[in-house]
């Protein structure tokens, strides 16, 4: 995974819940490319048509609260969102995002230094997000190792796949040694 991510910013307010990211009427849709057409329909209606891959979302507190629907981070990933940065996240959304390999970073105070259309530069190594348009920046604690390993694997599917593969290899070797 890239250690430095730069992209155009879209801002959102606080308490953007999963209904506002992808509403209940789309819960039977499982094709990510179909889902992305409706992403942020309630919270940010201009996003679906106006966004481009590599864009960065900057939100206020409690982003992704509400339901456990994975459609929310899935639709964002399908839309090409490079990262979502928020003052704080609701827990299930955060887990779902990381599990899908969508970079989600909690940065208290980040919402206050960005406006839509500005450029953000996220440095994962130094733990800093900078507004390239205004020069303001805010730092964040390093992403915990177990989350980083998930992101680096590209998400939970790949991580478990490797684990199961390793387990089978061990079993086979043990069998051969006997």
């Amino acid at each position, binding site marked *: 995974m890239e250690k430095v991510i730069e992209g155009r910013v879209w801002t959102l307010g606080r308490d953007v*819940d999963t*209904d506002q990211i992808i509403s209940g009427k789309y819960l039977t849709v499982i094709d990510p490319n179909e889902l992305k057409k409706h992403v942020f329909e309630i919270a940010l209606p201009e996003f679906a048509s106006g966004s481009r891959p590599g864009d960065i979302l900057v939100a206020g507190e*409690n982003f992704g609260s509400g*339901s*456990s629907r994975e459609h929310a981070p899935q639709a964002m990933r399908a839309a090409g969102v490079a990262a979502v940065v928020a003052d704080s996240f609701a*827990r299930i959304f955060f887990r779902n995002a990381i599990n899908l390999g969508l970079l989600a970073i909690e940065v208290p105070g980040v919402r206050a230094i960005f406006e839509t259309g500005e450029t953000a530069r996220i440095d994962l190594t130094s733990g800093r997000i900078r507004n390239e348009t205004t020069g303001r920046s805010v730092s964040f604690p390093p992403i915990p190792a177990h989350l980083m390993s998930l992101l680096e694997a590209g998400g939970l599917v790949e991580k478990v796949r490797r684990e*199961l593969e390793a387990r089978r290899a061990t079993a086979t070797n043990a069998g051969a040694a006997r």
Partner: protein
Amino acid sequence: MTGANGHGQSLAEKILARASGAERVVPGEIIEGSVDLAMMHEQGAQTVAPFHQMGAERVWDPDRVVIAIDHWVPASTEGAAVLHRILRKFAAEANLSHFYDVGQHGICHQILAENGWVVPGDLAVGTDSHTNMLGAMGAFATGIGPTEMAAVLALGRLWLKVPTSIAIRVKGSFGRGVTAKDLVLRIVGEVKTTGAAYRAVEYSGPLIERLSMPERFTLCNMTTEMGAKAGMVAPDQTTFDYLRPIAKHAMHPLRSDGDAAYERTIDLNVDGMEPMVACPYSPDNVRPLPEVVREHVRIDQAFLGSCTNARIEDLREGAALMKGQKVAKGVRFIVSPASTKIYEQCLEEGIIETFTRAGAVFTNSSCSACFGGNMGILAPEEACASSSNRNFPGRMGAKEARIYLMSPAAVVASAIRGEIADPREFA
């Protein structure tokens, strides 16, 4: 931190220590917990593809997996039919026999509760945010997404950061017309939607000890609306009496130590408390019901249903108010029991007749109007009095539609009046 030196452990810590095979765990620590029960509803259909992509050959323990069809019952769209079909096929292939399909269906959390699938000491996960409800069993029950569920099905475990705990201690007695729903609305109003984020909430105190299991379900259910990872009540005689005839596996009752460390302790006294309403557009926008009644808020729909409040006790209370009354002209009143078992009880007790003759629409059991994806959808400018748990913009349809959350009795009173009403006026 409150509590004497904090050497003791909270209920959440004890359950997670047990799940991870450790002597003790501390908040902030990452643990790998063995899962006692995994539950999926339709969102489980999205678990199947990642499960196969992981190269998993079998489910870790088919006897610890429950599937319940609850959002679209029977399938109301082609998309829903496809989800159901994926689940049925997977259940057959993976030998998952605890499948509550259309006909035995019910809201997933109610299915777990009434069949004893979650017991004291369990670590339970489900593909729904209101899985927290099962914490009422003295368990650690939490919601996860479908990809994470695929990993649970493959490995039988998941990682968790041990949360800090918040103690909510409640004393006093409910006055007339005041219920567990009013209590939890008051708590959400006080703690706010982020106030318990990532934390475990432990309810205790003399009032909590007197609550029935259905009341504890309602309380733990809406812990979700405070952002909590889990909400729980320590198991006691009430829990054991409820579970003994139905428990599916062995109980491991645990309790907090007297000197457990809590990040925050909230003491509440419900003496003199009014019924409560959560007004648009957030479950924490809570006001005393009489205040809202005085504003004459007209409603277009009333909904008595959802995992929060559609148990037999809720429907009995509602039917008692409904008897001899009519649904107000211009109001659509939807009543949806939380499970097929509850539906059958309603049938036997004449509750279906009472609601139907009063002009309500009594549906089969499902999530129904709660989530705005199946039926009972609201148009812009419409308002709904609801016994459910969320009122965010767009929750039940149009983003402008207004949802007022309240107790089952207040919903029925509002359906009769055609505006938000106080059930105490109908005694």
